[in-house]
């Protein structure tokens, strides 16, 4: 724990000295770096070291200074960007600079270390989530509203929400289709030894192919179809747009769903299946009562992998005009606008983490319900 908290303290100590705010006359122009006033530097230095001390003397309370450090960092980011913009033109932007990022990183690691301390002390885990409530409150009361990324988000407003929704729609549609197609296929393949071996072999080979290349390879046949049959093009089949992106994403997600399905169904203990047969279960009863419940946790982890992959692939799919959060990433890369990149990349990353955590939770729950945890 000490080592983790030391790792947390280092970036915070460095971050307190480094510039916190980058003030630019508009979102593209170069700007000037602003540091924190000495009072706040001192406060941050103290808060950087406090978790270390707490872990030594009062481990169960480590979460207090760690949470305070994170909330102070977020609050400082909000107030310092606000202060920097006083008297500036409307186009001026105040972004977070290296100091702010390092401090936030360190505070995050400190919170992680504090959670380990809480767990080691056998205390309830809810204290580890107080920071989220605090950050939420700071967001809602407008403290952060002068930070350039949120300024950008405000100006994008409804369009950003649309892109996020489009991202979610792409991912969930592709995932749903992949499960609808992949699940029966997996059941069919797992009953046939050679087919199952072939599926696993192909799935493993295809997995080595880069996702971007696979996306490209999958778009080519669609594009060829559209060229050969112009009627199809009017029906929405073409090399660009939502249809090819969805097709490519579905096929891409099909692999983990299919592979884990086959592995999971083959992994059902032979004794349980034999016993079920010997008891007089029909094939359908065997599948629903024994094979599926036992395969579900492993299968679900394939669905989770597919979902996480899809969040990433959907970001790339904006290249072919499918929309989604990738739009902001590529727009930002083209115009070298950091805030736009952040507006796309940070939500995409958070989305992937959230999807992963949610499905992982479902897996654990199912695993426990289905007797795997014992």
């Amino acid at each position, binding site marked *: 724990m000490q080592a983790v908290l030391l790792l947390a303290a280092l970036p915070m100590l460095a971050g307190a000295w480094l510039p916190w705010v980058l003030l630019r006359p508009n979102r593209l122009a170069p700007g000037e770096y602003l540091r924190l006033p000495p009072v706040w530097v001192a406060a941050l230095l103290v808060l950087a070291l406090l978790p270390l001390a707490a872990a030594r003397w009062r481990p169960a309370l480590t979460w207090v200074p760690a949470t305070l450090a994170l909330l102070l960092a977020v609050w400082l980011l909000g107030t310092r960007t606000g202060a920097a913009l006083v008297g500036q033109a409307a186009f001026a932007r105040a972004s977070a600079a290296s100091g702010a990022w390092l401090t936030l990183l360190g505070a995050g690691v400190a919170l992680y270390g504090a959670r380990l301390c809480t767990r080691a002390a056998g205390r309830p885990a809810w204290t580890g989530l107080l920071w989220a409530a605090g950050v939420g409150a700071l967001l809602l009361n407008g403290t952060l509203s002068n930070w350039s990324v949120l300024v950008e988000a405000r100006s994008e407003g409804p369009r950003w929400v649309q892109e996020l929704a489009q991202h979610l729609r792409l991912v969930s549609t592709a995932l749903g289709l992949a499960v609808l197609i992949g699940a029966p296929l997996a059941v069919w393949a797992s009953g046939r030894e050679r087919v199952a071996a072939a599926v696993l072999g192909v799935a493993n080979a295809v997995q080595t192919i880069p996702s*971007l290349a696979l996306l490209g390879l999958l778009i*080519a046949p669609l594009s060829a179809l559209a060229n050969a049959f112009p009627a199809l093009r009017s029906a929405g089949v073409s090399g660009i747009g939502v249809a090819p992106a969805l097709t490519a994403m579905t096929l891409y997600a099909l692999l983990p769903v299919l592979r884990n399905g086959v592995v999971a169904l083959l992994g059902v203990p032979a004794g349980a299946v034999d016993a079920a047969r010997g008891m007089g279960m029909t094939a359908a009863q065997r599948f629903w009562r024994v094979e599926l419940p036992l395969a579900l946790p492993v299968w679900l982890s394939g669905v989770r992998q597919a979902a996480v992959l899809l969040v990433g692939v959907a970001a790339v799919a904006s290249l072919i005009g499918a929309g989604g959060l990738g739009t902001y990433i590529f727009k930002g890369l083209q115009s070298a606008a950091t805030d736009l990149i952040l507006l796309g990349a940070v939500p995409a990353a958070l989305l992937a983490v959230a999807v992963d955590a949610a499905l992982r939770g479902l897996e654990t729950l199912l695993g426990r319900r289905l007797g795997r945890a014992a």
Partner: protein
Amino acid sequence: MNAARRTGGRLGNWAALLWPALLLICLIPGVLPGLINPLGLGNVGAFEPPLWRLTLTHLGLVLLSCVIVLGLGLPLAVAVTRARRDALRQLAETLVGLGQTVPTLAVLALAVPVLGFGWAPTLLGLIAYGLVPVVSNAVVGLRGVSPGALDAARGMGMSARQRLWRVELPLARPVILAGVRTSTVYNVGTATVGAALGAGGLGEPIINGLSQQNTALVLTGAVLAALLALSLDALMSLFAAPH
């Protein structure tokens, strides 16, 4: 079982010949455009820079990151698997898990504000992503060393350093090598995305083709990137095959 492994090994040897051979053939100027242009998906002419240069850039980025990843990842894994470093190991495992989750494009894009455009952010992304399988496999491998073997080594009077070099690392080697193989193959994919940041490489024709709606261009890059990944995978499987 033995026969199956032997045929598997023979297949592996064939793959290690087949994929690199196909890749080299496709790199001969004019071969790939000659194959793709008749499909009527668009037009591919001569490339500037030529395809073999793009492939070399790609390969160079991947191999460079691979070396750096090994240099960083192995000591890291060794450090967090020592006794009484449970908290550090958990932190490492959490970060590794996070790395597996966050989309490649997001990480690469986030590196741009810090490092600017070009190969630098891509290399950073390659290192970050490459560390994931190497560290996680090395941690699994080192933790999987049987306590019996370690106890015997201690009983023979080996120092901690001798135990690491003579017992733990040799025993964990197959798992670590498998991690290096996964890391390298995945990085071929990550480097493709790096083209969006101007890193060059085989992602360039794909990204250009996608944004110019020239599917032939996309196909050129995709075929080469896929062949490169399959070649590296097959070649590394020769070394990294589990005992």
